[in-house]
């Protein structure tokens, strides 16, 4: 069997006395869409924060593409090919839609503080021109090409979520972590989102998806991991997980 893209071993994290993740083992194979579900407080977002480096683990290993990344700062993990979206949208509010995507290209472009003084006066540098072309492509992919010049905070909610995906895609991730991308979306927006996620995956990006809308999970994912109280209680293809008594109990509670 080939090396998994992401392999997490014994990952633990507590906040004070609250154990949020308890020695979690999880592997994500390259190429697919892997969903993580579980009741609120199961540790899903904490898991994302640990993988992306926003939090450091109390114990455990995180291997990405075969190398240990557990102690790397967040921005270096992004450069290695891990990027995410946020459950509570965290776009750069003072920036335009285009600039948000261009910021996502930060780790794939060069240019320091003095570069504005270099180059042909009053003309964009070649690096800036090609970055902008790339940003336009990504905005077209998520259907926001017409909104490029607008302030990001002026976008409707559903479009802000797609802009979050566009910004993450700009960093050219191998593994994209989506944290409840359909939250607050209506049916039509959810259908469009599903098509977008499928298309991104088809282009070779492995996707790890936290999602509450079961219909979306069922249609998109190849494999579903169920977390409850920081532990993995089931892992199987979506159809199997749905009928698992432990999963039903976790969601509906026992007698």
């Amino acid at each position, binding site marked *: 069997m080939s090396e998994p893209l992401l392999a997490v071993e014994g990952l633990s994290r507590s906040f004070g006395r609250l154990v949020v993740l308890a020695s979690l083992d999880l592997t994500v194979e390259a190429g697919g869409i892997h969903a993580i579900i579980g009741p609120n407080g199961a540790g899903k977002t904490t898991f994302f924060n640990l993988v992306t480096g926003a939090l450091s683990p109390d114990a455990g290993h995180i291997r990405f593409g075969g190398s240990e990344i557990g102690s790397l700062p967040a*921005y270096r993990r992004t*450069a290695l090919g891990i990027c995410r979206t946020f459950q509570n949208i965290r776009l750069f509010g003072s920036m*335009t839609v285009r600039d948000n995507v261009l*910021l*996502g290209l*930060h*780790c794939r472009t060069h240019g320091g503080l003095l570069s504005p003084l270099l180059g042909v006066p009053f003309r964009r540098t070649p690096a800036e021109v090609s970055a902008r072309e790339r940003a336009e492509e990504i905005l077209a992919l998520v259907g926001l090409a017409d909104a490029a010049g607008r302030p990001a905070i002026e976008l409707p909610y559903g479009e802000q979520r797609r802009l979050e995906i566009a*910004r*993450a895609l700009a960093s050219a991730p191998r593994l994209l972590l989506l944290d409840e991308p359909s939250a607050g979306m209506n049916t039509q927006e959810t259908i469009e989102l599903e098509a977008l996620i499928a298309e991104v995956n088809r282009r070779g990006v492995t996707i790890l998806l936290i999602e509450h809308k079961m219909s979306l999970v069922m249609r998109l994912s190849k494999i579903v991991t169920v977390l409850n109280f920081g532990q993995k209680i089931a892992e199987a293809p979506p159809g199997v997980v749905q009928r698992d008594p432990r999963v039903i109990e976790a969601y509906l509670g026992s007698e």
Partner: protein
Amino acid sequence: MLSDHTISILIFAGIDVIMALSFYLPASAGQLSAGQGGFMALGAYTAAYLTVHHGAPFPLALAAGGLVGGLVGLVVGFPALRLRGLYLVLVTFGFGEVVRVIFLNAPAFGGPAGFAGIPPATTIWHVLGLLAVLVYFFTRLSGSRMGRAFAALRDDEAAAEAMGVNSTYVKLAAFAAGGVIAGLGGALYAHYTLFIDPEAFGVGRSLFVMLYAVFGGLASFWGAIVGATILSILPELLRWVKDWREIFYGLLVLTLMLVRPQGLLDATLLARLSLRGERAPARG
């Protein structure tokens, strides 16, 4: 031709604009400094020492003033890696005071009696020349990789890190660049006043520099330029009220901050004037 008096007002206003820009640069990355007077002192004393004691040519002394400001900015940037908001303001304020006290107790730099005999070198053309370079730099910065990283860091530091921005590097670069600009401002100042003492670069200086930028608005570097120009020329325009001048000045600042807490040039006004170029909302 302009009178010597008018030129003198313009030179001081220009140096105030340079100082306000030195505050704006780190502020555009979310790093508030209440110690820009300290960097200005370092630039002023370094350049003056070189021209007076080593007969250095003015351009070289100017560059050295900027360099020392930048290097110390790098050092001061380190606490900024862990501190935010008000705590950072306090630490940078402390830095400004430390610099003042060091020069106060350094006989080689004249101590409390000040440093005199600096050769006249700064002309209006030096000031305008540096301002032209800075305006060009800031115009280009807003549409560049680093400019966007600054804005992202100010909006949401954790999200910026998650998107691949090395916040440590960006913050240090912002502080160092702010230090370079303030150091250059100090060097120009010393070679115009021809006499400097530590009190010229104390808390008052740092706070006024901050006021200029905030008064003008932090949404764009134009705010720092407009704010510093108005507030440093205003006392001249208020001469007719004589003894009431400072009260008038204070009331004007207070009124504006009450009416426009976001400063003279806010995002909406900038979009209308389309001074922000790419950032202005496009139709479509």
